[in-house]
């Protein structure tokens, strides 16, 4: 008896999603991030900053440099995945885009309008168009609210003119669309399993019919069998509602499956942006190569992972030049001195690496 005898009758369906939906604004990006920087002050209030140094009172400030000059653009209908290891600033990018953090420098444009400096009131129409899905389904639902209340809230806020019946009908529709029985509205979040909670959180994001969704590690807190369910749900929603995704994850297998394009981040900078297939076929940046080789694969004849030396520097004391030079096997003097810029390559990818730029890699 073999696995074939047992395997699912389902045949692999054709890839159903297209890279980008053809539309009039195909060339204009839906979201554009320009020169984004974000630093967090570690040193507390003014009194705590004062230090004695060499007999003099000096003001001492320390910053975490979470994002250092990130440029990204997301086209309508695509799923841009941002990958990187913890502390690389990928979540900070997501939170800054959604206005949960204000950038220290740089601009964020949504559909041609700059949104990072808008007042909460002026931002409200954009809140309806952009929504967010969070990582932890155990913390993202208010424990004191029923599912019905949780889902009604955004609808009532953005459609104040709707009557009760219409709101209820919308809640039922959106619950059904994520696979949650609409009869369960009177229950509280803690009565559901992790996967079901994440479905409810997705329903909350979809309730106001957004066109753009930022998903911050939406499946990493879930079990393997549930991850597939939620990922399928997100892909269904994208197809049915023509959504654009900014998808933050550390899981490269998910990226390969889900993303149209991939941006790889390291220590607050983007080191490579490429169409998914290109990136997985021919990773250019040394860090991307190391990252790809480190995925645990089921096959046992794979090559050994590329061993990086050294430790990840902290974002408090950023290294000079290329932030990766301390761990890079190809680093040269120029890498330690000069910050590399994203340079477009022939295969459609953009790589920030002196070695690639000079043609020695």
């Amino acid at each position, binding site marked *: 008896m073999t696995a074939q005898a047992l395997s699912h009758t389902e045949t692999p369906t054709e890839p159903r999603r297209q890279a980008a939906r053809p539309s009039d604004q195909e060339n204009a990006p839906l979201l554009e991030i320009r020169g984004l920087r974000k630093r967090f002050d570690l040193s507390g209030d003014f009194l705590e900053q004062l230090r004695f140094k060499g007999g003099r009172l000096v003001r001492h400030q320390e910053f975490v440099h979470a994002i250092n000059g990130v440029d990204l653009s997301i086209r309508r209908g695509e799923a841009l995945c941002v990958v990187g290891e913890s502390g690389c600033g990928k979540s900070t990018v997501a939170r800054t885009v959604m206005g949960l953090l204000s950038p220290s420098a740089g601009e964020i444009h949504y559909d041609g309008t700059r949104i990072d400096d808008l007042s909460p009131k002026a931002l409200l129409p954009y809140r309806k168009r952009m929504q967010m899905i969070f990582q932890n389904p155990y913390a993202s639902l208010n*424990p004191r609210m029923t599912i019905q209340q949780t889902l009604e809230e955004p609808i009532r806020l953005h459609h104040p003119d709707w009557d009760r019946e219409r709101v209820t009908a919308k809640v039922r529709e959106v619950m059904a669309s994520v696979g949650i029985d609409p009869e369960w509205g009177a229950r509280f979040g803690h009565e559901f399993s992790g996967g079901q909670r994440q479905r409810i959180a997705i329903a909350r994001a979809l309730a106001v019919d957004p066109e753009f969704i930022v998903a911050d590690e939406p499946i990493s807190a879930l079990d393997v069998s549930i991850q597939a369910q939620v990922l399928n749900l997100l892909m269904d929603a994208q197809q049915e509602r023509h959504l654009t995704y900014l998808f933050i994850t550390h899981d490269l297998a998910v990226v390969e499956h889900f993303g149209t394009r991939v941006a790889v981040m390291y220590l607050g900078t983007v080191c490579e942006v490429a169409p998914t297939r290109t990136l997985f076929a021919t990773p250019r940046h040394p860090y991307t190569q190391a990252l790809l080789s480190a995925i645990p694969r089921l096959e046992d004849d794979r090559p050994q992972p590329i061993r990086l030396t050294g430790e990840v520097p902290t974002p408090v004391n950023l290294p000079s030049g290329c932030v990766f030079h301390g761990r890079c096997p190809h680093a040269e003097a120029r890498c330690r001195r000069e910050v590399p810029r994203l340079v477009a390559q022939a295969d459609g990818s953009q790589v920030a690496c002196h070695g690639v730029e000079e043609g020695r890699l």
Partner: protein
Amino acid sequence: MSTPSSSPAATPAGGRWQRLRDSYLWYSFKRDRGAQLCLATLLALVGMALLAPWLAPTDPYDLAQIDILASELPPFWIDGSDPAYTLGTDAQGRDLWSIILYGTRVSLLIGFGAVLLQALLGVVFGLLAGYLGGRVDALLMRLADIQLSFSTLMVAIVVGAVVKATLGGGFYSDYAILMLILIIGLAEWPQYARTVRASVLAEKRKEYVDAAKVMGLKSRRIMFRHVLPNTLSPIFVISTVQIANAIISEAALSFLGLGMPETHPSLGSLIKAGFDYLQSGAWWITLIPGAFLVVLVLSINLLGDWLRDVMNPRLYKG
């Protein structure tokens, strides 16, 4: 589209009563004799205080019912007692049982009133400080520090002196209950503010608050609709302790003559009134109201301890 096959935990949506009966709170209450006893005692005392006009044989506020000749009569188990006065009489000939009932009423009223005021101020300030952070936080918390550096006693003396000087002693004793609620309420709000602030700081990092922000909700709504309901458990726990504290504070102030006047006594002023007669043998005027005060405060405190143990998530792992 997939449908989840397992339904959420098999509780039917059965309303609040059902939820309470399923809760850990109810479960541990059922198993804890001490907590049951404390709650029963507390409810009995509160019930007695509420029903004082019907339970008390005489009205201690009615001067016409007072017989000065019947003063300092001992309670029933001592020779020389008068069967009309079960627990004896005080120095002015008032029935001690009646006046304790009315006194408990005054003590509880001040306790609950003061805590209500503390909670109102403390919760609002704590919520603002914790949620908004930055300068608002710094300002409110320094205010709290300053407030805490004055003892309740000092606030009482200052307020009492100012009111008496400006509005007259008569005004002060007429509105003594209100004054005491105000003094104790103002003196102890920082306890609430600190507790609330700490749990707001923990709650506001959770993702449901971010989700509410992303939705576009106004800060005020997020604070009161989302964050506040999730900080209620610690507020609940601290309230029991604070009620006991407020009753003790009131008793202390009254004992020092800064609280309720003897014409309208609380348990504290009863203790004080009887204190002068302790040496002359009429110990019951002090000790019986004293026992009531101890039982009242003890049952509230023990109930608070139990509640804290039950609600402390670090101890409770279901």
